[in-house]
Each structure stands twice: as structure tokens, then as C-alpha cells.
């Protein structure tokens, strides 16, 4: 009987907390992860963002490097986060567990997010974060934009998919189980990374790539003359000697890792790569 009372009390308290949440959305939000940064910047007004992660400043990897310069940043340490006195911290499974434990000890509310592995999961995550922030309308608006982009990126009915593969500096490629892999399928590109057993984000050996070149090569960006060993592989003569067989499209690494709003730009780039390749194939057939 006594235990039941406890449970009832707990439920009442929980309901109260939820109500308080609904009434009073968090006002000082901190994010510790690049991909959650992109969601936060998209969904919350700047005055409610206490800090985003320093990864967002990285011009290579961050899709929001421009906006990030206007916002306070943190270097993913509990010390900084505590000093910011946030009422909500967004962390991902990629963030350090030690930081999360520290936050728990201090009693700061944090929410842990997975890295979405599909478009569907990413859209669900957009809705979850929007609800947490008390910005459901903004969330729905973003979901609508993503869905419009998906519809716009689809090829015409009856289109035979073109073979394609992501090839970033260091040979990094994206498997079909990644969001990028799914976006490629949406845009009418058949990801041949699967043939080589690439799952997740793994390097694709150059020799395998050269042995059966795809029609579309989604190459990463490189700095001028590509001095690092990782970048040099993209300019390799073996790849250049097969340029007549494939079309190259720059697919920057900042479109690779995050889903959410980044999917809109990624879909645009993929559809452009497909249209460019189709035009090239037509031109070749006409000759």
C-alpha cells in the first residue's frame, strides 16, 4: 500500500514536471555535438542558445560554420557547461561519457541522442528535439522542408540508377547503412560501396575503386594542390586516368556526417551530381 502511494506520488510529480516543461521551455540550451548544434541553430532562436560545440566553427566539417561565429561556443568540458548554467544540455553518444557523468553529478538536465542511421530516424529526432525545446511548429516546418527536398531530389519515374560512390580524402567512403547511403538511393544513385563490403564510414581501397569505376564519383574537397597524404589520394593519377569513365562531383565532408537540416543540401548536391552525369552520358552517346 505504501509502495503504491510512492508510485502515485512519482507519477504526479512527473506529470507536474512535464506540465512545467510544456509551460516553460528551456531558455539556456547548450549543445555538445556538431550534429545537435545544426538542429539547435535551426530550431531555437539565438537568444536561447547558451553555447554550441566548437566543432561547429570548423569550416571543413561544419555545415553551420558561418552562423557559429555569431554564437557562444564550448569545448565540451563539464566545467564550461556548469559555468553557463544551462537548463538543458544536448549530448550525443559521441560526446565523452566522463562529461555526461559530471553533468549528472552536478544535477544539470541533459538529453542523450543517438546518431540517426536513417532518414526516418533523423526526422523523428528533429521532432523530438523540437518538442524538447517547445518549438513544435519550427520542427514541423523543418520536417516539411526536408520532405520537400526528398521529393525534389527523386529522379523521374523509370530512371535507371547510376552507380556512384563517396570518396573523401584518405579514401573514406560511406556505406549503404549510413544516412548518406540512403540519400544517394533517393537521388537515383546506386552506392557501389556495398560491393566492397563497406559499412558505416570506412576507407575504400583505391585499387578496388579503380578496378570497377562508378559512373559518379562523389569526391571530397581538398585544399589547393592537396599537400597532405590523405588528400593526395583524390588527385591520384590512377583516378585521373579513368576520368573519361566517370563524372566527378564535389561532395564536401560537411554534408557527410550530419543528417537533419544538412540532408537538404546533401540531397541538392546528389541530385545535381546525377543530372550532370546524365547530361555527360547523353553527350557521349550523341558523339
Amino acid at each position, binding site marked *: 500500500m505504501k509502495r503504491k502511494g510512492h508510485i502515485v506520488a512519482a507519477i504526479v510529480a512527473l506529470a507536474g514536471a512535464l506540465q512545467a516543461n510544456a509551460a516553460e521551455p528551456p531558455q539556456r540550451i547548450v549543445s555538445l555535438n556538431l550534429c545537435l548544434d545544426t538542429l539547435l541553430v535551426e530550431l531555437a532562436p539565438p537568444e536561447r542558445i547558451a553555447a554550441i560545440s566548437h566543432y561547429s566553427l570548423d569550416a571543413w566539417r561544419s555545415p553551420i560554420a558561418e552562423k557559429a561565429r555569431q554564437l557562444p561556443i564550448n569545448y565540451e568540458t563539464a566545467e564550461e557547461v556548469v559555468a553557463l548554467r544551462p537548463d538543458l544540455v544536448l549530448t550525443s553518444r559521441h560526446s565523452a561519457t566522463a562529461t555526461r557523468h559530471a553533468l549528472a553529478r552536478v544535477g544539470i538536465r541533459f538529453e542523450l541522442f543517438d546518431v540517426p542511421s536513417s532518414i526516418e530516424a533523423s526526422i523523428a529526432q528533429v521532432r523530438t528535439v523540437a518538442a524538447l525545446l517547445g518549438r513544435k511548429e519550427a520542427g514541423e516546418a523543418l520536417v516539411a522542408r526536408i520532405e520537400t527536398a526528398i521529393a525534389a531530389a527523386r529522379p523521374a519515374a523509370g530512371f535507371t540508377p547510376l552507380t556512384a560512390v563517396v570518396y573523401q580524402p584518405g579514401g573514406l567512403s560511406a556505406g549503404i547503412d549510413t544516412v548518406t547511403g540512403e540519400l544517394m538511393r533517393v537521388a537515383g544513385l546506386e552506392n557501389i560501396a556495398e560491393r566492397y563490403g563497406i559499412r558505416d564510414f570506412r576507407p575504400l581501397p583505391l585499387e578496388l575503386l579503380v578496378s570497377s569505376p562508378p559512373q559518379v564519383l562523389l569526391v571530397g574537397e581538398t585544399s589547393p594542390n592537396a599537400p597532405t597524404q590523405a588528400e593526395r589520394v583524390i588527385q591520384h593519377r590512377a583516378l585521373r586516368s579513368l576520368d573519361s569513365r566517370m563524372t566527378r562531383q564535389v561532395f564536401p*565532408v560537411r554534408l557527410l556526417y550530419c543528417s537533419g537540416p544538412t540532408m537538404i543540401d546533401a540531397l541538392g548536391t546528389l541530385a545535381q551530381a546525377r543530372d550532370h552525369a546524365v547530361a555527360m552520358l547523353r553527350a557521349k552517346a550523341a558523339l
Partner: protein
Amino acid sequence: MTAPITVKGRWLVPALLVLVAALACVSIVVGKVNLGWDVWSHQDDVSRAILVELRLPRTLLGIIIGAALGLSGAALQGYLRNPLAEPGTLGVSSMAALGAVLSIFFNVAGMHPFVLPACGVLGGLLGMMFLFLLSGMAASALTLILSGVILGSLAIAGISLALSLSPSPWAAGEIIRWLLGALTDRSLDDVTIATPLILVGSIATLSCRRALDALTLGEVGARSLGVDLNRVQWQLALGIGLIVGTSVAVTGIVGFVGLVVPHLLRPIVGSRPSVLLIPSAIGGAAFVLCGDIIVRLLPGGTELQLGVVMSLIGAPFFFALLQSMRRKLT
């Protein structure tokens, strides 16, 4: 001075050359993609790209760099009269890598393809000068090795620092690539850059061979034979600096070649430094080719770095060497 060549020694060079030729053939055949026999008869552009643009540069670089590193190890051991001397253990390779990485960090490497190896050579030269400064101060084998370890750690710290501070998103992977060298995905462009520099370095090193022999009598003995030690020192620093700097700029640090190969060959050709140089070069080529073939034969999706295999072979060898030295000394 003509060297007295033992009967065993006379067959060594041809035998090593045959070994290198055989390993080169294997190196061309082995890879991620299994090329069937028909590929060799009627070539299409794909198999041509794999053979000419991927496998051939790999094999050529393996031979050139292996030979250069074997030669530099033998020369350095002769000059310092220390069996543990080698560009890798003495930190010269790490200094060369630091030079190359700094040229990336300060954004000058993109200006011309020769800038990166030139900075590597500069780093290697600095490392050699530091080393000679120490050995000039009558350093014991132990002091020399210890200062090499310190120089190496310092250079590696510099490499990690520079790459971590660089805006490149590939920094972490790049640190590994520099510290554990590899021949994976190098191109003919790399071969054309490395060959002239290494050739000059090897000639400079080889022309010191008479002085190296004289040095076995000690510095006073060498001087009395009319050897200009100052000149020899500079020539050797330049030669080895060029060799190590260039090879590190192209492949990253490939350690232990210059340590293992001269030691394996010394019992056969005898302990005269001048006779050891050429066999060590050919043996070095065989050793690196062999390591690079093992790397490609090992199962697993991503290739292991060549430096890993070389260290796995070289480190136990180094320990065995230390052990036998200790027995001799005590």
C-alpha cells in the same frame, strides 16, 4: 684499396639482385584486386590504371626507398662505429617528417611538388647535424642512442602538435600516416620526385666509403691516412639528409630498414664498411618489398601501414642486438 672478398661474399650481390627481382614481380602481382591472366594479354584502361598507376609506383618506390634506407643505415653505422646507429633510431627520420609536416602546416607545401620533400630534407639535415654535434663530443653508444630517442620524441611531439593545430579535418589520420610510413596509393609523380633526390644523396653517401674504412682505425688513424674528416662529415650529413628526408616525405617514417639489413649481411661480407654499403642497399630494397607484400597479403578490409610490419620485425631484432651487445660489453 680493393676489398678482399670472401667466396660467400662474391655470390651475395647477384643473389640479392635475383631476390629483389623476384620480390618485385610478386609485388606487381599481389594486391586487393586479383588480376587474372587475361588482363596481362589484352589490357583495358582499368587494368592498365591498376598496373601502371598503382602497382608499378609502389614496387619502384619500395626498391628505391628500401635501397636508400639500407645504404644510409650501413653508412651511419660505419661512420659512428656504432651498430645501433640508424636514421630511425637516432631520430633523423622523425626530424625529416617534422620538416615535411611543418611545410604542410605553414601552407607552403602546395606551392610546388618539390617543397614538401625539400622541407623533409632540411629536417633530416638538422637531425644529422644535431647527431654529429653529439658524436663529436665523444659520446658513448648509450648517450648517442638516448639522445636519438629524445630527438625522435621531440620531433614526433612537434608533428602531432602541428597536425592537431592544422585546420585539416584529416589531422588524426595524417599523424598516423606520417609516423607509420606506407607505400599505399603512391603514384608515378612520387617516383619522379623521389628518384633524383635520392640518387644524389646515395652518390654523396657512397663516395664516403674510403673514409668510412679509414675511420675503423679511429679518428686519429683516419686523419693520418689523409682523410678530411670535416668534409666527410658534411658530405655524409648531406647524403643521408637527402636520402632520409626524401623517402620520409614520400612514404612517412619507415623504420628499422637501416638497422636490420646491415646486421644480417655483416657476417657474410665482413665488417668493412665500404664492402657493406652496396649489399645493404640491395638488401634494404628486398626487405621493404617483402614488408610491403606482407602488408597486402594480410587479411582485413583496410591495409595495415608498412611501418607497423617493419616495427614488428625490427623491434625484436633491436632487442636481440642489444642483448648480444650487453653480453660483449660486460
